[in-house]
């Protein structure tokens, strides 16, 4: 392709020089890096843009160099040579796709619209088989981490007293969560220091979950109690905790491996200075 200057002898670019068929806009000392550059062998149209006329894929440039160009289908290409390693990336104009690995050296990948995310459907059977995509089932559209406050509460709304020492006066009711997609991972530590307003004869539950559990019939979410202390329970019983569908609280029960019975956990079982360490995950 001939240079633009050969076909446009009247072309005048203020504050510019030409070098090897390139136009560099500068102020006499510094490359300004802005302005309008139109490289074409046809009619010159458009402003405030850099226009790349279409060419076939050129050879890779010399070490340490990169070139940008477009092809006849409108795709934009960047081709570089770093230490003898050739790299080519493509921005596909017709399908808004990108070819090549992407590294963000500074800054984040920001999703600008709620509900959008990273679509993995190409890896899954529905895409391979051509079957209809399960809406949302292959889209990673949520990541969030934060804290929550576990509160032990009886069924009348009475609340066990929990320690308030430590940072944020929250030492006896510490909880963290991370939500990835539609799964919420939780962890908490509860340290009671009194019965508070709770009725010691009533069943208690753990409230304060960061999200409500998905309301799917029979889909309980099961929590693991990895730590307990100072409980007022009899030998041979162990805890079992779970979240019922559609709920924002954790049920607590005691399994009696000798009697083979299950009883709900009451405030008196936890006792005024009982502790619970719990972890688990559930769907939203």
């Amino acid at each position, binding site marked *: 392709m001939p240079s633009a200057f050969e076909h446009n002898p009247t072309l005048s670019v203020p504050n510019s020089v030409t070098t090897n068929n390139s136009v560099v806009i500068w102020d006499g000392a510094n490359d300004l890096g802005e302005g309008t550059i139109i490289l074409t062998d046809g009619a010159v149209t458009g402003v405030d843009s850099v226009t790349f006329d279409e060419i076939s894929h050129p050879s890779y440039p010399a070490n340490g160099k990169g070139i940008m160009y477009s092809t006849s289908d409108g795709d934009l290409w960047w081709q570089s040579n770093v230490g003898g390693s050739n790299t080519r990336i493509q921005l596909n104009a017709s399908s808004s796709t990108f070819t090549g690995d992407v590294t963000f050296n500074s800054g984040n990948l920001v999703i600008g619209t709620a509900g959008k995310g990273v679509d993995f459907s190409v890896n899954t059977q529905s895409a391979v088989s051509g079957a209809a995509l399960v809406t949302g089932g292959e889209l990673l559209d949520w990541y969030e981490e934060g804290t*929550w406050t576990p509160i032990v509460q009886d069924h009348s709304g009475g609340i066990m007293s929990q320690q308030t020492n430590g940072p944020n006066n929250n030492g006896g009711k510490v909880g963290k969560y991370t939500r990835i997609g539609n799964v919420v991972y939780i962890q908490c530590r509860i340290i009671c220091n009194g019965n508070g307003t709770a009725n010691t004869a009533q069943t208690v539950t753990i409230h304060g979950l960061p999200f409500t559990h998905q309301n799917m019939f029979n889909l309980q979410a099961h929590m693991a109690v990895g730590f307990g202390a100072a409980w007022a329970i009899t030998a041979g019983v162990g805890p079992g905790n779970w979240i019922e569908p559609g709920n924002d609280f954790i049920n607590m029960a005691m399994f009696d491996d000798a009697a083979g019975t299950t009883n709900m956990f009451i405030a008196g079982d936890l006792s005024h200075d009982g502790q619970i360490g719990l972890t688990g995950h559930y769907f939203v």
Partner: protein
Amino acid sequence: MALTEEIYVDQVTAIEDEQLQVRTATVIKKDGEEISRTFHRRVVVPGADLTNEDPKVKAIGEVLHTAEVIASYKARIAAQMAEQGISE
């Protein structure tokens, strides 16, 4: 150097049976520039006391948590507990 802390409800999501998922953001700024943002979450269910709630949550709750919605939510929870053999 001036450090400031702002705490506010930045997200309220009404879900099935009008439970409100509430996210509170704590934003730390240094000389006006945000340097930290952390989240705390909880759920406000129909029938919960809205008296001391954040104004945004209270306003939404007062609209959505009608007597009918509260009754429906409580009936669902009661049915679950009955199924588990739990009595209030």
